[in-house]
């Protein structure tokens, strides 16, 4: 297992507009590292640069202790899973799996053994003699994974490997890939546009937007302490509510909501800010007269999911969401009182979009430590 180091990577296709600029990251050996961002932000380009399928226009890539950015793809000692699987249509499942071993001149007996073992790990034993076109989408996906794993390459790259599967299979494969990665201790660099995949699979996540790194951190760091409004709204579903706010008279004013009082000693230098509030932090108020910082909202849409209810309303000219657990008897058009606790609010500077203050994270609110859980 090897470390992968990206140092000030730069990429442009047309010579002028950068597709990636100044990307820095160190992916530790044995780590599940997720690259996440909206479509077109340069994730695939970055992955393909690491693989050597795309040349770099600046910066350095180090794999293990070796400078890699001038090496051929095959010299970088990595395996790759493609979005459309890229199976060889003329070869059987087994031959597809061991194709790379064949090229590397692994002896026949060992090839057979490793091919069998990997097929077993992925539940492909019954399909070894079939051709790719005789398999379902999920099975092809497994063959593609098997082909990457059988290599025993220290680094494995995956470009949206689950995006062609249906939702249920995707959830299943998420868990399966994660388990295999843990069992084999693989270093995986995984590209996805799906924040759920990023949150559930990654040991660490790198959020990318328009070719610029927004934040690198563990899933909870990214969720609890987003570095800017982009990360705040990209991670989490429904997304964090964001609105322009003004701080005056020791209160935070957001259009469409009641003023939110700042606690004693919690003064903020800035006046113009972006306020970010997670949907679960928009709380229902039982006694609107007594509670400070409450306001009336008009419900525009309700989604009842069984275990929770998601309300949509408008504040500061944008769609906002509130997520409450349980089944709430609320209808569109209802006007209901809600409040926001200042401790739950994340603030970002309006000019630089940099974080000023993080919202209180849900685990702090619940006040249960890991030690207590394990008892």
């Amino acid at each position, binding site marked *: 297992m090897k470390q992968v180091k990206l140092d000030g990577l730069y990429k442009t296709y047309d010579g002028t507009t950068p597709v990636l600029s100044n990307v820095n990251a160190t992916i530790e050996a044995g780590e599940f590292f997720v690259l996440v961002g909206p479509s077109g932000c340069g994730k695939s380009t970055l992955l*393909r640069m690491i*693989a*050597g*399928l795309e040349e770099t226009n600046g910066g350095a890539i180090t794999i293990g202790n070796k400078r890699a950015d001038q090496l*051929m*793809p*095959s010299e970088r000692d*990595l*395996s*790759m899973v*493609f*979005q*459309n*699987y*890229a199976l*060889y*249509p*003329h070869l059987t499942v087994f031959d597809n799996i061991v*194709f*790379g071993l064949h*090229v*590397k001149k692994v002896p026949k007996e060992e090839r057979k053994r490793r091919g069998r073992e990997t097929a077993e790990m992925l539940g492909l034993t019954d399909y070894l003699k079939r*051709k*790719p*076109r005789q398999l379902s989408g999920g099975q092809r996906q497994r063959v593609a994974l098997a082909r990457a794993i059988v290599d025993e390459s220290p680094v494995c790259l995956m470009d949206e490997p689950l995006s062609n599967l249906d939702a249920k299979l995707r959830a299943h494969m998420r868990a399966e890939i994660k388990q295999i990665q843990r069992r084999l201790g693989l270093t995986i660099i995984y590209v996805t546009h799906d924040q759920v995949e990023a949150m559930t699979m990654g040991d660490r996540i790198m959020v990318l937007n328009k070719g610029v790194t927004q934040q690198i951190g563990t899933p909870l760091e990214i969720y609890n302490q987003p570095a800017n409004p982009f990360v705040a709204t990209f991670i989490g579903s429904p997304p964090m509510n964001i609105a322009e706010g003004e701080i005056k008279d020791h209160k935070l004013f957001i259009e469409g909501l009641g003023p939110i009082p700042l606690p004693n000693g919690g003064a903020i230098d800035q006046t113009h800010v972006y306020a970010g509030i997670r949907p679960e932090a928009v709380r229902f108020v039982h006694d609107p007269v007594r509670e400070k910082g409450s306001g009336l909202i008009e419900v525009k849409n309700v989604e009842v999911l069984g275990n929770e209810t998601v309300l949509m309303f408008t504040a500061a000219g944008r769609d906002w969401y509130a997520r409450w657990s349980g089944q709430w008897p609320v209808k569109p058009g209802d006007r209901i009182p809600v409040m926001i606790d200042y401790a739950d609010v994340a603030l970002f500077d309006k000019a630089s979009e940099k974080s000023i203050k993080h919202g209180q994270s849900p685990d702090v609110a619940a006040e249960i430590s890991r030690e207590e859980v394990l008892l």
Partner: protein
Amino acid sequence: MRMRKRITLYILLILSSIILFFPTVYALMVSFMNGREVLSGAVLPSSFSLDNYKKAFESLPLLSYLWNSLVISAAVMAGQLIVSSLAAFAFVFIKFKGRNALFFLFISTMMVPWEATMIPNFVTIQELGWINSYFGLTVPFFALAFGTFLLRQHFKTIPKELEEASQVAGLSRFQFFYKVVLPVSKTSLVTLGIYGFLTTWNMYLWPLLVTNDETVRTVQIALKQMQTKEVSTDWGVVMAGVIIVVIPTLLLLFGGQKQLQKGLTQGALK
């Protein structure tokens, strides 16, 4: 209504297949007739005697002509497949400046009729001393714009990721060519192979030009010789020759057809 439509359709199909097939069947019938029967305009022979076939083999070294045709057709087929697939590979998988312009130049040679290039080709062959040799009969046909075009179209359907996957796996470009691209394009290769073989087998003018003795002559010339050898043409013998010449091409077509169908249903990507 539907029934009547169907009956009309079948009658039309049967009629056209009779019209299409009549010359071949008649040739087969004539090949069994003796001279008198042919002249009397009979449609069916009185007996199926093989005399004409015997005579056909006796009057000319037909076997050696057949062998020449086979060697030349197979060589042209192989040459075309190799040259066209390599050219198509370059046009699809190797990036270079002016690739498309070069390709269109290449394709535009399809508009020059072959007869127009015959004389310069003949002079070249003569200069090389390839008159009366297999080289002269085969090499001019190796580069085939149509074949390159056909294979390029197929190669273009191969997903880019397949190439990238083999790069990551450590395949060289040439290994990618023969381990992935060729097997995946089997259908088109078979089509092109049959096309090349049949075209060469049926070629007449060029073999006539560049050969002047029996050593490398092909069967098409033999047929012509049979017609002109005697004062009055013995059509029974000529038709026997025709049937002999047609058989290998039919075999190839039937064999290839199976392969083609298999390829069409199996080769589908993704």
